[in-house]
């Protein structure tokens, strides 16, 4: 019971502290530069220059402390040797350039980037649209959403029950091999089949991320004004036309957000590969390779160099977002 009160009070203090900052800092600003009186116009203008930073302040503080600082730290480490004691210049990057495993990881990451965001977004959109007006839609949504709620380790076990291999003639406990053998085929070692295995790992992430896409997209779909759709139906548009010509363009912005978010999840994909193959049989990806070097080999230099490459890969997406943000501002 004591713990309960401790928990409740700490929750209260934590949340209250945040609210107090935003409310209090705005109040102070309004007192110093009151938006009325003789100099109100001037005051409002100056307050409007300061206020964004009050709103952004805590976020910028957190982002720089918890994300920018580690990035700078990684950059520094990537230019040093295994335990950070000696400056080695770009040696770690040179090593990366010649490393076969690194190239394999890059190629695989690119494949993941092509396949997963596309499939997850398409399935998410499909799920959102299909379950939209159904009586049992919310149950359906919850079931599709469920994989999101399972930890990656749990997901690893779940998919083991799908991909597990037993020699021909034995009882298959993997669903996929069971189906294959029932159809008269030979059981396969799915996770060791070059080319196939990466794709099979991608399916796991698609399975998880579809729920994410569905939730966001279904909110967007419902945000489309009824009148627009009704008008299109009265004009004789078929349901398919309504979907592709009216709904999809309306939520294009949200689709882009979902796509971007999943792309970034894919860039960072680690747990699935780590749990299911650990990057063997040609399934290595950058984040797992980074983990290998940082925590298995205890070589923070190389590990950080891989992390920096990972972060550089996101540049095109950043540029595209700057472009979009400018367009929105106009």
């Amino acid at each position, binding site marked *: 019971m004591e713990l309960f009160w401790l928990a409740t009070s700490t929750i209260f203090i934590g949340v209250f502290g945040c609210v107090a900052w935003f409310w209090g800092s705005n109040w102070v600003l309004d007192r110093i530069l009151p938006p009325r009186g003789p100099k109100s116009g001037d005051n409002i203008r100056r307050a409007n220059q300061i206020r964004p930073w009050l709103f952004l302040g805590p976020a910028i503080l957190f982002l720089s402390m918890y994300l920018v600082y580690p990035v700078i730290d990684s950059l520094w480490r990537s230019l040093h040797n295994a335990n950070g004691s000696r400056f080695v210049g770009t040696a770690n990057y040179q090593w990366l350039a010649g490393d076969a495993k690194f190239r394999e990881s890059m190629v695989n990451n690119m494949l993941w980037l092509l396949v997963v965001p596309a499939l997850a977004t398409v399935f998410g959109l499909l799920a959102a649209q299909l379950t939209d007006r159904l009586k049992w839609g919310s149950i359906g949504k919850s079931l599709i959403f469920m994989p999101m709620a399972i930890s990656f380790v749990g997901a690893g076990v779940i998919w083991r029950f799908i991909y597990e291999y037993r020699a021909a003639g034995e009882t298959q406990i993997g669903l996929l091999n069971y189906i294959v053998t029932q159809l008269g085929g030979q059981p396969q070692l799915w996770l060791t089949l070059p080319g196939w295995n990466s794709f099979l790992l991608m399916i796991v992430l698609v399975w998880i991320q579809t729920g994410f896409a569905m939730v966001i997209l279904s909110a967007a779909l419902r945000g489309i004004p009824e009148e627009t759709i009704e008008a299109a139906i009265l004009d004789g548009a078929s349901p398919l036309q309504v979907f592709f010509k009216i709904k999809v363009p309306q939520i294009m912005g949200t689709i882009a957000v979902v796509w971007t978010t999943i792309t970034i999840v894919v860039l960072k994909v680690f747990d699935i590969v780590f749990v299911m193959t*650990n990057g063997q049989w040609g399934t290595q990806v950058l984040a797992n390779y980074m983990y290998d070097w940082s925590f298995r080999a205890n070589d923070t230099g190389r590990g950080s160099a891989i992390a920096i490459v990972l972060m550089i890969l996101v540049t095109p997406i950043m540029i595209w977002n700057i472009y979009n943000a400018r367009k929105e501002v106009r």
Partner: protein
Amino acid sequence: MRITFFTTVAAMALAAGSAQAQLVIEPGSDDRINWQSLDEFAAAHPEIEGQSFNILGPWLGGDQELFQSVIAYFNDATGATANYSGSDSFEQQIVIDAEAGSPPDVAVFPQPGLAADLAERGHLRPLGAETAYWLRENYAAGESWEALGTYAGQDGTDELFAFPYKADVKSLVWFVPENFEDAGYEVPTTYEDLKALTEQIAEDGETPWCIGLGSGGATGWPATDWVEDLMLRTASPEDYDRWTTNEMPFNDPVVVNAIEEFGWFAKNPDFVAGGTGGVTSTDFRESPAGLFASPPACYMHRQASFIPTFFPEGTVVGEDADFFYMPAPESGDLGQPVLGGGTMFAVMSDNPAAMAFIEFLKTPFAHEIWMAQQGFVTPHSGANLEAYDDPVVRRMGEILLEATVFRFDGSDLMPGAIGAGAFWTGMIDFVGGAEAQAVADQIQATWSSLN
């Protein structure tokens, strides 16, 4: 006055109650256990009373409970408080904690490679020459154990930094005695016999071995144990040492030969259950199940002393299943090599109680109290063999004590990038069809590239 009296009584009753609840064996009750050594230790360290310190280790579940039962006696006798916490991502967490400046007082390393790394970065406290001497004198094959805990410190001088406590015997082959009886097979006593038996079982139309290399993120490690065991049976212990430090390159013919030897077992589809494909994909935890299938999917399974945890429920080790020592070659030149593992205790802070805990681990008591429960093997020659509660574990302990050559799991001695990386993946490639030479070249290339 009265109130204080009552609260004191209540506090004492509470303290007694909780302490009694933790001590699994009534102190002084079991004469196989050297209680005197515990009392003497406590008497020699009155200064740590009231101190508390943290121990971080890799043990979870059953092992965690057992280790906590050992700590309970330490706490009870000395009045200090040792808190153990286990983590399945120990390797990662210890590095993070040490580098970030909040290390535990004592760390339990599952592999010496990691401890050596932290010693070099100045995170471990030297245990002193006296402890090193103690190890040489009191552990069977003591010099091997001392070498395991001796690393270069931050200033580059070699010192003892880690104390081995709780060993694992790896050179074991598990089998079902009744299946051997039914088929008329004998337990092989030489390496040549083992190979002959393998061929014979295959000729009988049966499958001799179950080998499973799967282990999620660590897939491949069981193969490294195989290669190490075979290395000790095809090359001298000196070559083995040179191999683990890369004085002898990984692609040296001696090493390639040991890998080929492993291939003799694992790459022959007639010798392994599920064919070679089954080897790479079967999880090591499920692999022994083949021994117990009817008809048997295989007859032998080489794995370390922990594997009975994964036998089917209700299996009685010693009756339903048993093990034999992975035999040495007939010629006898290589002695009776034993491959093993063990956990290493290192002190990471200046807390005097932490250092005293290492002293505690030297007492026969600290070993016997765990032996009297389960799952503990020790090379401590001063510990009473009678204390082993389980005759099967006792036989493992004897293997350890009789070893003429004891070598630690080589992959754990190699740098992490090799021993927990290239070596694992290389073995998967090898069983998957790659040539031993090509795999060894690849591993050596990675090793050479380390800076």
